[in-house]
């Protein structure tokens, strides 16, 4: 089952902050975040492997709440280059091992305006 992302779309002025959420109905081994610009391929941002882990990519950070089966992506002081669609990819927890197979969320379209 596909993880649910919220919001579906957000418009920010340059310099503003945003939070994108990703929730799954399944227990998770890991959460991956990707960004895709229009007409391009998804590009990896970060992986979160442990419950409560936080990672950072430039001014973008993320957290993973294993118990709640959810992850959040935090974009701080947004830049024009952050525009694009953000996808979370979840990896199921099965028998103590991840299976490397990602199920991607529906995506969150982020538009940054000057």
């Amino acid at each position, binding site marked *: 089952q*596909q993880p649910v992302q919220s919001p579906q779309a957000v418009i920010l002025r340059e310099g503003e902050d945003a939070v994108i959420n990703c929730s799954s109905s399944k227990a998770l081994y890991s959460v*991956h975040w990707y960004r895709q610009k229009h007409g*391009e*391929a*998804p*590009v*990896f941002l970060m*992986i979160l492997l442990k419950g409560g882990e936080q990672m950072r990519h430039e001014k973008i950070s993320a957290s993973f709440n294993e118990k709640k089966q959810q992850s959040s992506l935090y974009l701080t002081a947004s830049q024009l280059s952050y525009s694009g669609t953000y*996808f979370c990819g979840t990896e199921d927890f099965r028998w103590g091992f991840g*299976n*490397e*197979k*990602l*199920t*991607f*969320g*529906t*995506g969150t379209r982020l538009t940054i305006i000057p």
Partner: protein
Amino acid sequence: DARVTQTPRHKVTEMGQEVTMRCQPILGHNTVFWYRQTMMQGLELLAYFRNRAPLDDSGMPKDRFSAEMPDATLATLKIQPSEPRDSAVYFCASGLGQQFFGPGTRLTVL
């Protein structure tokens, strides 16, 4: 720099025709994924391979789709016969953990 390559980049074909898409993963990556992206369904995993062996192809319509890795430098996705509902962008990705996506093949079936 190392990157995943895909051919063709664009393909327009008529319903019923065979379509073959090719992917060259990054050298040394032994895990290769095929995804399909549409506006309605988003990014869906079709199949993936480890060391050229198929691990999971449950996302792929079995009657018309097939995926293979003839060697470590080539992965193929074939659709026969193609249908208009197959129109989508097909991505190949390689890597374990961090996945590196190719530029995609935009397929239009008329």
